[in-house]
């Protein structure tokens, strides 16, 4: 770490000032407006809005599917990170490059593509139809869409950490008599846990707020397949600014608490 306050390198005042002004104008003040607007509601009004059945249903759906998608990505991401870091095989570079596709692709494009895939008559959806359930227009569809969108998070956070574990640690474990599975279970996975949690948290946070890739596949039926961000849009369309802001604040607060919890858990694990 070599950042130090030094008069030799100019620009402190200029850059700090510009940064703060820019951030305030563009980010802080607008976000502040959100909280300010909410204060116009009385506490009782706020509770009434956020505990409405429709809001609660959307809350459960958004957080539930985001969690499921994050768990699914926890598994897929670990698999992909493992294979990409530890094995050399033809075509590896293609997978490596395409992992970031969900980052680069506009969410609307992802949305219609996934809907086409999982719709009742789509290439994959038709198998589900045959077995009597549907993927698109159900929470399952939402979860799969979120899995696509948040795929890179776990993979990309795990890759550098996995690559960094020195070969010697595994050799030491082998010399001490550990079987390959034991080495993975007792030596490698525990070392990856903090990074895994970070990836999980990022995927989860992103999934809760995701809009574009979900609204096409969700079906958007109130109380059943309506996600929180859509509910905000609906309220805005009805000029129910108060309702929209209340839900917005709710989303931010709940996400913040959950992320804080994950952060603390991470710190506990990293130190112990």
């Amino acid at each position, binding site marked *: 770490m070599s950042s130090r306050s030094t008069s030799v390198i100019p620009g402190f005042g200029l850059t700090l000032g510009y940064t703060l002004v820019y951030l305030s104008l563009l980010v802080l003040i607008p976000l502040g407006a959100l909280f300010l607007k909410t204060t116009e509601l009385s506490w009782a009004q706020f509770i009434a809005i956020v505990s409405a059945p429709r809001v609660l249903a959307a809350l459960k759906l958004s957080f539930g599917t985001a969690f499921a998608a994050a768990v699914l990505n926890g598994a897929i991401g670990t698999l992909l990170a493992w294979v990409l870091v530890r094995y050399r095989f033809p075509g590896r570079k293609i997978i490596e490059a395409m992992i970031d596709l969900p980052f680069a692709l506009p969410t609307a494009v992802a949305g219609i593509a996934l809907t086409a895939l999982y719709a009742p008559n789509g290439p994959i959806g038709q198998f589900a139809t045959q077995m009597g359930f549907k993927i698109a227009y159900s929470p399952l569809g939402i979860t799969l869409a979120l899995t696509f969108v948040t795929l890179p998070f776990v993979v990309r956070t795990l890759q550098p950490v996995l690559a960094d574990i020195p070969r010697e640690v595994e050799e030491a*474990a082998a*010399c*001490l008599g550990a079987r390959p599975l034991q080495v993975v279970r*007792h030596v490698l996975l525990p070392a990856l846990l903090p990074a895994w949690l970070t990836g999980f948290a990022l995927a989860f946070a992103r999934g809760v707020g995701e809009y574009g890739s979900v609204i096409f596949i969700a079906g958007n039926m109130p109380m059943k397949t309506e996600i929180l961000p859509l509910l905000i849009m609906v309220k805005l369309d009805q000029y129910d600014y108060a309702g929209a802001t209340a839900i917005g604040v709710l989303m931010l607060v709940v996400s913040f608490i959950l992320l804080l919890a994950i952060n603390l858990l991470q710190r506990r694990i990293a130190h112990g």
Partner: protein
Amino acid sequence: MSIEVRDVNKRFGGFQALQAIELHIQSGELVALLGPSGCGKTSLLRIIAGLETPDSGSIVFHGEDVSSRDVRDRNVGFVFQHYALFRHMTVFDNVAFGLRMKPKKLRPSEAVIAAKVHELLNLVQLDWLADRYPEQLSGGQRQRIALARALAVEPEVLLLDEPFGALDAKVRKELRRWLAQLHEDVHLTSVFVTHDQEEAMEVADRIVVMNKGVIEQIGTPAEVYANPASEFVYHFLGDANRLQLDEGRSVLFRPHEVRLSREPQAAYIASEVQDIRPLGALTRVTLRLAGQPEPIEAEVGHDHPGLVGLARGERLYVQPVPSAQAQPSAG
């Protein structure tokens, strides 16, 4: 347990790392594999451990050919240069690891494991660190824990790969002595790799000098120093000066194998003082000898009478006294 290395060869791509290596290590011996980087000493150590497989040849432990045995079945203790401690485990868990990984039938109870771990931590005098994490320890402490961990599974062979390479000079010296003492107490067949000849001479019962994938010489520290088998061994085990004789012959001598005089004497060569460097107990003088292409370095006690008032550019008379035994057989 004795170790035999029989005709081991190893290539890495186009590079011949080891060639026709033959080595016999007695039970209870402490042997040093000594040589410069790239000489193959680490490859050999890893082949003995089972971390690499040779292209040809075999490794025999106490009469049993273990060449095709997996590393975890060879019962070797291995200590790495950078410790390879498990970062996310306490010192206690690190040392207990090998015992906990044993198959159910052979695994001792936690109580027995705990007793053994504490016994080993006491052996390395670090029992008070049992609950710490590796990142909280100094380099020297980490290496001792790594050693305790390796000893926990009661190996019959102890292998150390430049164990003190990552440590400060002073800590290195302390641990060197400590390892030698440990070996006296525990008497485990041990092989360690080093490029530091002082370390090898101080600790090992026998030294295996290696260069470019072949063994140059095997012998006790005294033997390899006093009777080097080749010029390489001579140069590697200490500083060397060369004296050109007639007919293209030359002779090697050590910096301390000289006599100095301010006055000309019979059989002494005239020289000009190029540099005088006090080094504590010794003083090193660089001299340009008449008729010799290269300067020589002489080391004498700091209170040598010839040094009184000596300055650069002055004349000094020097008689090299090369040891006849030490002249390597190859010219």
